[in-house]
């Protein structure tokens, strides 16, 4: 399972293999995203938004289904990161307000984390992550 950053880095590496002078700025232009956003996402400084993931996935030739799956996976990882924070309370309405993400999208992400055994709903007030977010 590839995440968005891995996909971007893989394509960047391929392009640099063909042209050693191919820059991140040129890659951002080819992907139709801003250089600062791409740089932030690749370095892990900023999370990839759903819009960013979808655009990058489309530009890199993923079909609609693959692009949606990539967006879903990114969202699940984002939810896992929220759960990992100190003081997390298991309330998706609260997470939605703070993150700006729709509750329904968070429900889908929650289901993914549960079915992939990345998260355990241990008690009514405690959610336990398994492994890294």
């Amino acid at each position: 399972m590839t995440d968005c950053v891995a996909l971007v880095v893989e394509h960047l590496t391929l392009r640099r293999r063909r042209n050693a002078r191919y820059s991140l700025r040129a890659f951002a232009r080819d992907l139709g995203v801003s250089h600062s956003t791409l740089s932030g996402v690749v370095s892990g400084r900023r999370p990839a938004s759903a819009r960013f993931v979808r655009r990058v996935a489309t530009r890199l030739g993923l079909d609609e289904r693959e692009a949606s799956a990539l967006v879903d996976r990114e969202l699940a990882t984002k939810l896992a990161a929220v759960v990992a924070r100190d003081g997390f309370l298991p309330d998706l309405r609260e997470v939605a307000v703070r993150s700006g993400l729709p509750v329904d999208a968070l429900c889908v992400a929650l289901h993914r984390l549960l079915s992939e055994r990345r998260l355990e709903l241990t008690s009514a007030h405690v959610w336990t992550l398994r492994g890294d977010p």
Partner: protein
Amino acid sequence: MNPVREWQMISTDPEATARFYGEAFGWTIDRANPLGYRRVSTGGGTPGGIWPAPPTAHSFVQLFVAVDDVEGAITRAVEHGAAVLVPRSVLPDGDVMAVLKDPLGVPFAVYTSA
């Protein structure tokens, strides 16, 4: 014997599903809970809920079988050929639930109500 006490629709467009059943049959939806779960009241009939499916999945209906002991029910179901999709989970309202797939591949849930 374990009764079916609830059902759940998994929908790629939960808002449209809620609107349709509300308008066509007068079912009411309540989302005031920590998962923002659309609880459906059917006016004295079997209650249920609507849960969003990923856009790439399809929509379907799941039966919720009420049990006394979720772990025990999982063990029995697995002995009879079921597979676990979502392990035992304690929901924020205190309900305990697991989602399984029956031997023919149909997903269903076992749960105890808080």
